[in-house]
């Protein structure tokens, strides 16, 4: 066997920097500031939920791969850990452990491994887990601990409503937004991240920093985050101009809820987003529109998860109709 020459197709070299593990690690690193900040805000509950989610996501992936699919487990690509982490950032910090376990099981088991594991899934696994939880346990999933209030308690944390919830409920009840303003934090507070909500809804600033890191590292391109945030801002702004008492202002729209987390970390998931810049823009703009539509006219105060999941379903279609132009073919010629 000694020194047999290798023969393969070209190329015979490979970019050193490119590996799945490295990419996932980059995303996890980019999330870290926001994660640590949420630990600071929510204390022990946040730590428990995060650790349990990450560990269980990895464990589920390992168990399912090994015993159900009988494939070699690929937990070191870190994608399961990332899914767990993102799920943790999408739930309240006082969510009971057993619900977290169900969430990661659904995310990994239903959302990812049923499709064949990494890269095969159609929908964002973490969001599948989150929406499953939201619909299964609406009470637990919508009682948000108040930041900084009960950092040393887990299940019995003091809870309050999210700014979006307050506005939605108020408007539904016929109140004016200007009357509701005193109940919700200021824009600056939101930007720094002190408000009720899930772990990852905090700290727009830190999430944006993470996003910039990812763009610089070329892990993600700007198209999806910018188009989502831009669309929410513009469409939200339009509504606000039409009736500022019924629709909150555009800054409020982009700083609250999961817009930042969703736009920067979740809609950008390669597996479940379109391939080409054009496709990404269509994807992002549609998500932005859906977010505002669901927020303003739907039942749920927040629409990011649904918007992303719905658009995930459109990705194969978008990919089909936004192929790059093949060199040497006319621009007008349609491909199918």
């Amino acid at each position: 066997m000694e020194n047999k020459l290798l023969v393969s197709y070209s190329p015979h070299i490979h970019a050193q920097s490119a590996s799945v593990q490295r990419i996932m690690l980059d995303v996890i690193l980019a999330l870290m500031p926001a994660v640590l900040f949420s630990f600071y805000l929510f204390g022990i509950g946040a730590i428990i939920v995060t650790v349990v989610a990450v560990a269980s996501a990895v464990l589920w992936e390992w168990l399912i791969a090994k015993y159900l699919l009988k494939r070699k487990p690929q937990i070191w690509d870190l994608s399961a850990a990332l899914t767990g982490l993102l799920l943790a950032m999408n739930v309240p910090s006082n969510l009971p452990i057993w619900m977290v376990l169900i969430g990661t099981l659904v995310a990994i088991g239903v959302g990812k491994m049923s499709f064949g594991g990494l890269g095969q899934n159609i929908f964002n696994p973490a969001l599948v887990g989150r929406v499953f939880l939201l619909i299964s346990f609406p009470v637990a999933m919508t009682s948000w601990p108040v930041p900084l209030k009960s950092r040393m308690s887990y299940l019995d944390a003091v809870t309050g409503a999210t700014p979006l919830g307050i506005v939605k409920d108020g408007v539904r009840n016929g109140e004016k937004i200007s009357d509701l303003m005193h109940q919700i934090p200021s824009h600056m507070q939101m930007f720094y991240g002190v408000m009720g909500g899930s772990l990852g809804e905090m700290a727009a600033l830190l999430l944006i920093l993470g996003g910039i890191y990812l763009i610089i590292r070329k892990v993600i391109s700007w198209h999806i985050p910018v188009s989502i945030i831009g669309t929410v801002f513009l469409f939200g702004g339009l509504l606000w101009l039409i009736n500022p008492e019924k629709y909150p202002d555009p800054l409020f729209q982009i700083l609250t809820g999961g817009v930042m987390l969703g736009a920067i970390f979740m809609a950008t998931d390669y597996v479940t987003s379109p391939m080409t810049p054009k496709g990404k823009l269509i994807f992002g703009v549609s998500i932005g529109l859906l977010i505002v539509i669901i927020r303003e006219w739907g039942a749920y105060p927040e629409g990011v998860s649904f918007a992303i999941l719905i658009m995930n379903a459109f990705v194969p279609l978008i990919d089909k109709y936004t192929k790059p132009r093949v060199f040497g073919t006319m621009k007008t010629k349609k491909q199918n």
Partner: protein
Amino acid sequence: MPEYKLLTFPKGGVHPPENKLTAGLAIEQFPIPSKVYIHVQQHIGVPAEILVKPKERVLTGQLIAKAKGFVSANIHSSVTGTVFKIDEIYDASGYRKTAVIITPEPEDEWAEGIDTSDELRTDIDQFTPEQIIQKVKEAGIVGMGGATFPTHVKLSIPEGKKCDILIINGVECEPYLTSDHRLMLEKTEEILVGTRLLMKALKVERAVIGIEANKPDAIEKMTEAAKKYEGITVQPLKVKYPQGGEKQLIKAITGREVPSGGLPIDIGAVVQNVGTTFAVYEAVMKNKPLIERIVTITGKDLERRGNFRVRLGTMVKDIIDYVGGLPEGTGKVVLGGPMMGKATKTLNVPVGKGTSGILLMRREETKRKEVLPCIHCARCVMVCPQGLEPYLIMSLAERGMWDKAEEAHAQDCIMCGSCSFVCPSNRPLQDYTQFARNTVMSIMRARKNK
């Protein structure tokens, strides 16, 4: 650094580490080996017909196999010696093909009419275009940029087509390789005369020599020298692989796109490699057939590297032994560059007209890593200079869905390997796109013939 605007092609491309370890090493003559193995097919097209028999004595530059049909090329003996036998020997394709094996004598005895002096000859006016093409044909010149397409065919513009620009490809965008670079530095004038000859043959007024910006010395020297020659300009290009790809090069320089399924001549361009151009010079001005070429021999662990002028038919093994033998831990021997070259299964393979380099790679540097599922990161899509979706073509090829592969334009792949290079999941994309390209093309050809 002089100021110039760097042109490039618009979409895709990668930046592999350049590793031009031999750029500073002047061309050396490689000694005549103990045997030469000359394949009768060193070009795209029909194998040439053998004219010699075992035991026959042949002279350097003597025609030993004659082109058969139009798309074919003459083969000449690269040494003086006795035909040992005619046998099947591995060639770069990895299959055994017919070759004339010659036992050389130590001293060259050149065939009649060949001018072996180093003197520069520029009197091109004595030749008509037809004579130039005829000489190119006789000399058995094929494209030395890698494709080994018979040059006289390329120079014979088909009825109804018109060529208005000649592009000389001095890009050498492959990492490691430096043979074209050295040639441009050392044979500057010859290449320019060759360019004039090609211009004349093609009846064009304009020629552009494209050189990547990582060879400033060559750009400077060529630019300087080109001032003397009418209609020739040098165009520096951005360092980006595959800048030297014909279609990309034409796009960068002229802004025109070779239509999918078409040839450069469809948009009035012809591209020739600098090595080819030099060979044309020698063939026309010196009557010298194509019997040797510049080969870069390189590799990180090699004791002695260099750019050698090698007689065609010299065994790779002989060359490697000459530079110190195969280093410990060598995993791959590549004929050509690391992006497009062919790995060989054996060292018993001779240098052919298309062998631009011999690259020795460490096993750990080149051994493929575990293939993971595609994570749809779109990197392959973004780097493909041809606007293809390699991940998709690979999936389709894996499942034998050739009709869909054709819809996905697999036939337009130029096999540059950029996609495989960047894939974080180590997917063998180029393997499949190349396979799909070839399969789809043969399906398309079969359909057309029907």
